[in-house]
């Protein structure tokens, strides 16, 4: 039996050093910090810098004004249009990187055994293909609005930075299928919440046709979330029972 829940040597806790730790504790108590002569606290500095900071960036102007006119959507002008373009750009970036995330999970799915209640390769493939289709849908919508689907909008940049740990964990050869799915769970939770907002925004702006297509995408995402949550739950619960299965890759 070998899996990522195995116990072994882990030196990070203070209890690893029963002789040195009391002395180190004593050292910290003796060497108390002196008060700074400059006398500003970090919170004040952070507040000041937050007030002075420039924005992450801006939403690009529509690439084609002609395209903008063709849509004949009076509501989609000025500030509202830029909010919609920004959020469409965010979903586009997320779905595109989500497709790459599922490619990484598929690799782990092939390398590691699944478990009772765990994912089948076909299901992971289905999620992958749906993320890809959502990416395509968002490209279409942005193009329809006269916007540039290749631009990175501020919300896209933030969304990718917020989830920067996901490809990092999923691409690590040391992480198991179950550990990767814990990462996918975070992505799917965010994805569901963001699609819901995007649908509301589309309706608000009179884009009912787009909203209907987004609802279809949301139904896909809801299924992804239910499944991934179930796979992670069964993996963790199984590991804590006598039914615990080996989750290391089979040696070639």
């Amino acid at each position: 039996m070998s899996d990522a829940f195995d116990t072994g040597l882990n030196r990070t806790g203070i209890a690893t050093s029963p002789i040195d730790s009391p002395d180190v504790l004593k050292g910290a108590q003796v060497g108390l910090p002196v008060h700074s002569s400059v006398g500003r606290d970090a919170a004040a500095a952070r507040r000041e810098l937050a007030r002075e900071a420039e924005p992450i960036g801006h939403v690009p102007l529509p690439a084609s004004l002609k395209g903008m006119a063709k849509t004949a959507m009076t509501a989609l002008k000025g500030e509202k249009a830029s909010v919609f373009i920004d959020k469409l750009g965010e979903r586009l970036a997320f779905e595109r990187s989500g497709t790459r995330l599922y490619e990484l999970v598929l690799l782990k799915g092939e390398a590691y055994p699944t478990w009772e209640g765990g994912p089948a390769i076909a299901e992971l493939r289905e999620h992958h293909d749906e993320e890809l289709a959502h990416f395509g849908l968002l490209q279409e919508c942005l193009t329809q609005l006269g916007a540039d689907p290749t631009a990175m909008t501020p919300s896209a940049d933030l969304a990718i930075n917020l989830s920067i740990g996901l490809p990092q964990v999923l691409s690590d050869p040391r992480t198991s299928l179950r550990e990767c799915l814990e990462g996918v769970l975070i992505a799917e939770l965010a994805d569901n919440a963001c699609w819901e907002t995007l649908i509301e925004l589309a309706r608000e702006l009179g884009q009912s046709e787009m909203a209907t297509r987004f609802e279809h995408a949301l139904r896909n995402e809801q299924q992804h979330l239910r499944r991934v949550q179930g796979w992670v739950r069964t993996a963790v619960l199984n590991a804590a029972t006598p039914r615990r299965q080996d989750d290391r890759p089979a040696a070639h």
Partner: protein
Amino acid sequence: MPLDLKNERGVALDKQRFSWKELAGKPYSKLDVDAFTRVRVILMNGIESEQVRFLHAMARMNHELRADLALVRRIEQHQQTLVNWLNPADQSPLETTIGYEQVAIELTADIAQKEPDPYLAQVHRFGLLEDFDHLYRYAALYDRLMGGDANNFTQSYTDIRPGRPTELEHRHPLDDLRTPYDPQTAKPLSKLHAYVLVAAEHQTHDYYMHVGPFFADPVARQLYAEIASIEEQHVTQYESLIPAQESWLTKWMWHELSEVYTYYSCYQQETHPRIKAIWERMLQYELGQYAHVRGLFERLEKRAAASVFPDRLPEPIQWKQHRQFVRETLERELDLRANGAKFVEADAEPERSLQVRRELNRDGSPSEMVAAGWSWRPGGELATSALRMAEGSLQ
């Protein structure tokens, strides 16, 4: 307009001061900034980093100059901080890497076209085609690992396509050593080119060595290891152009001049107002440092600086795209290889380099694995298939 060094005194050393808030100032916006502003920030970090590295080496060998070196070096280190901290936190190491390769391509292409010495120009073109390939490999990694589009950063200035394949760039160290320029006859521009390229390549090497292990993906880790090794080759190549018989003080003067030259080039063409003001300030600081070192040179070497160094700087670096030049160079010189200091056709490459390459690539080539079948498409290689998928399933 060339800068007249005779009439520029710059800021005196004791007036070159910073606060922490200035050193860690406001970054540029990675989304809104022009790609060449990012290119300039990356290059100037490299120029400063080379200066700090060189002045430390000099201090170890020149006891009598250690006080002057310490004074100037501290300022240089702070200048490097101010410049490097302009890079924003939301620009990932891989995105910044794409910027590094754009620096290598556009800077080297500009230099190769202006280089007056035909042999040196050939050296620069040889290096150019290798860095050009690195951009393609990293762009493939960015697309396939992160779902990103490298053109968000290169902004359609630079082609993203294969150059001399990275897997063929690995050589024996003796095939990376070139013939140095003649310090008596080489033009000032040739000397500046060598100093600038050593700086750019050295920082690129150091950056890849630093960020490579932070990647989890095993192919990314191998790719950074592979390209860092080529950057070390490039440092060897460009460093070998600078003749060892130049005195330490002469080399210090050329370092200062290369800083004046590059900051002036940045200042002259910068479009970002806040960053333009930074280049102007740094230029004034460098002119002050140059005046100081010029005094040291004249006092200690007992000869007029004007007998060795130019009074006017050459025409600045042109920050613009060089796609046509790069394409023509690819067309003509893709298959060149190195045999010692000479450039030869592929079939005349020495066995020692072939042997090095076979050994390094024996478990596979990361640069080939990462980009197999990949070509750049707007929005990434998935963009077209995604549209087809959407038509099929989401109508």
